Each structure stands twice: as structure tokens, then as C-alpha cells.
């Protein structure tokens, strides 16, 4: 019961953390581009404003999809805080991803449609990686339960550095950062306007944004599992990871989906197989 209450508190804090992260991200990105940048609280202003806008939708399925997206992302985070099953929480997160696509596909908007197709291809790219990372974790700990990861004595990163890189690919895709911001990105200067998010507006866009925060925190939480032994190590790992993400975002062009599939599935899977074999042998 105590875990449950703690998990609920964690769940409530997640959007705050996610929003702050997004704010810091935007500020740092701005500085990397020699700009002053927005206030750190900017993402919250954005979401609050969006919540206050008049709803505008093409059809009702969109609304339903937005709600399901947030809900399942939140549920996945809850499962994470409950120290549940990694694979299960990933599948729960998939519900959100799928409904995001369903919502985009249900509207006759070419941009949303193309965005949805690309989002699916992105899922195709990152899903196997995440599953394989989980398998690696289960090989190291003998179980898919997060609780068992915390029972380990040595940080996972030492035994599975390549899988961490694979997870980094997934994180980049999920964060919608270059070179993988192909289905939708935070700045609309791309050929698809805002891809899957094109037809969402006002409060529903705010929901998707909050859901996105949940997703980001969740994946960062997964990264944190790689150095669970000390808080300092965990924070350092996360800071380094996120800083690397921001840097990569700023030194890469956006690539195309064929490149993404080839690169992520090729390089990512080779790294993973290598790491799995290593775990398998030892």
C-alpha cells in the first residue's frame, strides 16, 4: 500500500518534472543556438494556455485518442513507480503510441496521415530496441521486474553499455529530436507541419503534450535503471544522457525514415545482439 501511495505521488510529480525538463531543454537549446531562450516555466505556460483555448476538432475519435494517450502514458509511469514489470509497462505505453496514431489516422488530413505513417515507422524502429534492452536487463537480473533491478549490486551500465546506447536511440526518437524528428517535432519547420499533432489543438494538444512529458520521464526513468546503485550516479547518468540528446539534436540534420530504419535497426540491433551475447556468455 505504501508503494502505491508513493507511486501515486510520483505520478503526480511526473508532469511537473517533465515540464521542467522540457523548459530546461528549450533554454539550453536556445543557448546552444546563441539565443536568450524562453523562461524555464515556458512549457507550463504553453500547456495552461492550450487548456484555456476553445476546443477545435475534426472528429470525436481524436479526442478519445488524446485522452487514452495521456491515460496510458500515466499508467505506464505508475507501473514504473510501482516497480512493476518492464515489459508490461512498455506494452501499456504502446497503447498510448497506438492511439496517438489512430487519432491521427482517423482524420482526413494529409499531414496527420503522413505523420501517423511515419510515427508507426518510428515505433517500428524503437520498439524492438526497448524490448531487447528489457531482455538484456532480465538476463542480468533474471527478471523483468524493476524491483529486481534495484536488488542488483552492480550498476547495469557496466554490463550492458551497448544496450544503453540502443536505449539512447529510443530516447532520441521518443523525444522527437534530430535526426529522428520525422513524424512531428517541437518546432514546426518541417515538411509535415506537425505531423501526428497537426489536427490537435487547444486542450487536446495540451493533453498530448502532458502525455509526452510522461513518456519522456518514463524513458529517462528506464535510463536511470542503468545506474540505480547511487542517487548521484543516477542523476549524473541522466544529466549526461539528456545533455547528449540536446547536443545531438543541435548538431544533426533531420534524417528520413528509410535512413532511420536502416540505422536504428541495423546499428542498434547489432549493438544489442553483441551486448546480449556478452551477457549470454558471461
Amino acid at each position: 500500500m505504501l508503494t502505491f501511495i508513493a507511486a501515486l505521488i510520483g505520478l503526480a510529480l511526473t508532469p511537473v518534472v517533465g515540464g521542467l525538463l522540457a523548459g530546461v531543454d528549450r533554454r539550453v537549446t536556445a543557448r546552444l543556438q546563441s539565443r536568450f531562450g524562453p523562461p524555464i516555466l515556458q512549457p507550463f505556460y504553453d500547456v495552461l494556455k492550450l487548456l484555456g483555448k476553445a476546443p477545435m476538432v475534426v472528429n470525436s475519435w481524436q479526442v478519445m485518442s488524446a485522452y487514452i494517450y495521456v491515460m496510458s502514458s500515466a499508467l505506464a509511469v505508475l507501473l514504473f513507480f510501482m516497480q512493476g514489470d518492464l515489459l508490461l509497462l512498455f506494452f501499456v505505453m504502446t497503447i498510448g503510441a497506438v492511439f496517438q496514431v489512430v487519432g491521427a489516422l482517423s482524420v482526413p488530413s494529409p499531414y496527420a496521415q503522413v505523420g501517423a505513417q511515419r510515427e508507426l515507422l518510428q515505433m517500428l524502429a524503437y520498439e524492438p530496441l526497448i524490448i531487447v534492452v528489457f531482455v538484456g536487463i532480465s538476463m542480468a537480473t533474471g527478471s523483468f521486474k524493476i524491483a529486481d533491478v534495484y536488488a542488483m549490486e552492480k550498476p547495469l551500465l557496466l554490463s550492458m553499455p551497448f544496450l544503453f546506447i540502443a536505449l539512447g536511440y529510443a530516447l532520441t526518437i521518443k523525444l522527437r529530436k534530430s535526426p529522428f524528428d520525422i513524424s512531428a517535432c517541437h518546432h514546426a519547420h518541417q515538411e509535415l507541419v506537425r505531423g501526428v499533432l497537426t489536427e490537435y489543438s487547444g486542450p487536446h494538444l495540451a493533453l498530448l503534450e502532458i502525455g509526452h512529458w510522461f513518456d519522456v520521464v518514463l524513458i529517462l526513468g528506464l535510463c536511470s535503471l542503468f545506474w540505480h546503485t547511487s542517487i548521484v550516479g543516477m542523476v549524473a547518468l541522466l544529466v549526461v544522457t539528456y545533455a547528449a540528446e540536446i547536443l545531438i539534436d543541435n548538431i544533426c540534420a533531420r534524417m528520413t525514415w528509410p535512413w532511420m530504419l536502416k540505422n536504428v535497426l541495423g546499428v542498434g540491433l547489432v549493438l544489442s545482439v553483441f551486448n546480449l551475447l556478452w551477457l549470454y556468455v558471461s
Partner: protein
Amino acid sequence: MGLLENWINKGRLKSPWVVHFDCGSCNGCDIEVLACLTPVFDVERFGIINVGNPKHADVLLVTGTVNHRNKKVLKNIYDQMPDPKAVIAIGACGTSGGVFRECYNVVGGVDQVIPVDVYVPGCPAKPDAIIDGVVTALDVVKAKLGLGEMPKVTVID
């Protein structure tokens, strides 16, 4: 409820997302609008993002004269912006039609088609003027929300 309402109003003033529509401009104002987004002027300081999609936008920046073909587009874009929204007409062409007022294919300023909240003069309008325009637009929004007074028109200062 009151607290949330306050927060939302604060958000509205702190996060004006803009959509830019080039409505037959000579590109002069367009590149100045774009320049506003770039490091030297960086309007993201005010929470402004160029969203490129009317459905996400709060403020419509229009540059250029309205002609018979793009007036429908302008109207469409305006209609697709969810309330509350504001329109800023930029440059001589956007405000009145500028040098092209008398061309056969020109309808005139943006206010011929949609209601305009702020007029930014200039040919082309400087980025500073565009930033002033957005700030004025926020004042207009504030006034519409009942949180402040309508900005004054200064003819001669």
C-alpha cells in the same frame, strides 16, 4: 476555479504562439518576421513559437497585400484558429495595401478580410517593430480578457 483561470490567463499572455501567413508580401516583411525568431531578436523569450499551423496558433501574423486568390486562404486560416486569437497586420502592404493598393489584383489591407488587432507600419517593418506589435497584441488580448486597458493610439509623439 479562480486560480486555474488566473493561471490560464497568465499562460495566454506568456505563450503567444504565432502562425505566419505571407499574404502576397514582397518577402521583405517575411524575412523580418523570420529574423525575429533568430538569435539576435529571439522572440522565444516571450514564449513565441512559430507553429506554422493555424490550429495551434494564438496570433496570426499577416504580411503583404490581400489579393483575390489569397483572401480565401487568409479567411480559412483565420477560421481555423481556435479562440481566443489575435491578428497582426505587418508592413505597409498588410495594413493598407501599401504601394500596391491600386494594382488590379489587390484587394487591400488585411482588415478588408478579417478583423485586425494590431497594425505594424513599416516597409518592411523592422524586427523591433514586429516585437512591439506582438507586445501590443498581448495588451489587446489582455484588454479583451478584461485584465487591462486597450493600448492607446499615439498619432504624434
